[in-house]
């Protein structure tokens, strides 16, 4: 469901050759939006792609903000899980998950069903509203 390597997926058809995960999330990575916002869930012929990572290095890990291009619009988003293995005891997800966010940090959607890592709780100040709408934690 929404996995990048399959040729049949509900939001976008991708028949071109697909790369696996090399670094975590950087420019031009296709991501999966996990909240229940309209922007994230309506199907479009192009998948949501990262166009900028707000980081000194261009690589985004869990808890970094990125700029996403969805449905021809630019939107900020928060990374909640990536395919690249991280430090031990932290979860590694099977897809690059992202939650849409406004400029002031308010989430666009109202519910997040997919599990979120507990490490985000460390930065409770910035992400309190996102953590409040999350249901499952891993």
């Amino acid at each position, binding site marked *: 469901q929404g996995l990048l390597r399959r040729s049949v997926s509900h939001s976008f058809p991708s028949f071109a050759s697909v790369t696996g995960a090399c670094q975590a999330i950087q420019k031009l990575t296709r991501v999966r939006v996990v909240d229940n916002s309209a922007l994230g869930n309506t199907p479009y012929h192009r998948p949501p792609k990262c166009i900028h990572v707000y980081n000194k290095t261009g690589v985004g890990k869990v808890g970094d903000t990125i700029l996403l291009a969805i449905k021809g619009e630019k939107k900020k988003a928060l990374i909640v899980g990536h395919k690249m293995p991280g430090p*031990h*005891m932290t979860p590694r997800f*099977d*897809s690059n998950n992202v939650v849409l966010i406004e400029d002031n940090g308010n989430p666009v959607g109202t519910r997040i*069903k*997919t599990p979120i890592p*507990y490490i*985000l709780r460390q930065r409770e100040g910035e992400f309190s509203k996102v953590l409040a709408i999350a249901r499952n934690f*891993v």
Partner: protein
Amino acid sequence: RACSDGKPAKFQPPPKPVIIDKQKQREERRFLSPEFIPPRGRTDPLKFYIERKDMIQRRKVFNIPEFYVGHVLAVTTADPHANGKTNRFVGICIQRGGKGLGATFVLRNVIEDQGVEICYELYSPRIQAIEVLKLEKRLDDNLMYLRDALPEYSTFDVNMKPVSRLHHEDIPVNKLQVRMKPKPWSKRWERPKYNVKGIKFELPEEKMKEAQKWSQPWLEFDMLREYDTSKIEEKIWKEVSEELKK
């Protein structure tokens, strides 16, 4: 108790108690965790001896059960950011890696249609409890192909009750052949290098034959790669079991 005749029942001696000598049976089934076996190399065995002493110290304080790849485990870790400070994760063990104190095992589960894998360190002080929920060996010792298999093979209920353990008997081998998602996969599991026995390949015959082109049949006869661990295991087993009994 009166019998059918109406006369008092004949004295029947109580059934003989069956004495299961648990210590003997435990000795018959020896299991040495794979991280005790030192890797092949030129390092001083003193380093491994000191590491083993530390590992045994930790095992005396915290019980690490015997488990193999394919078991379903529930691990509770101490997490400062979780509610109640503890975090419980249930999953199937897909890989056991590392030697010595850095030994790790990867648990996989699919929660809400999202596959999650966590690599835990066996000897980390953050781990508070490891419970074996289901004892089941699989045909391979590396189940990484579950990432490319249909998600139903990796889903395990988080509130699963521990299946009752058949004591002192062999651990059952589950000969399940897993069905895969359509290609492309993260690794080409049909190639003989991975030696995967637990997948039901639904690929055409030509693809299977083409995959055999990459077979290296001389590898098993390569003498320079040989590493016979039987004698090392015997020594280490004696050492470890003596230390643990103290």
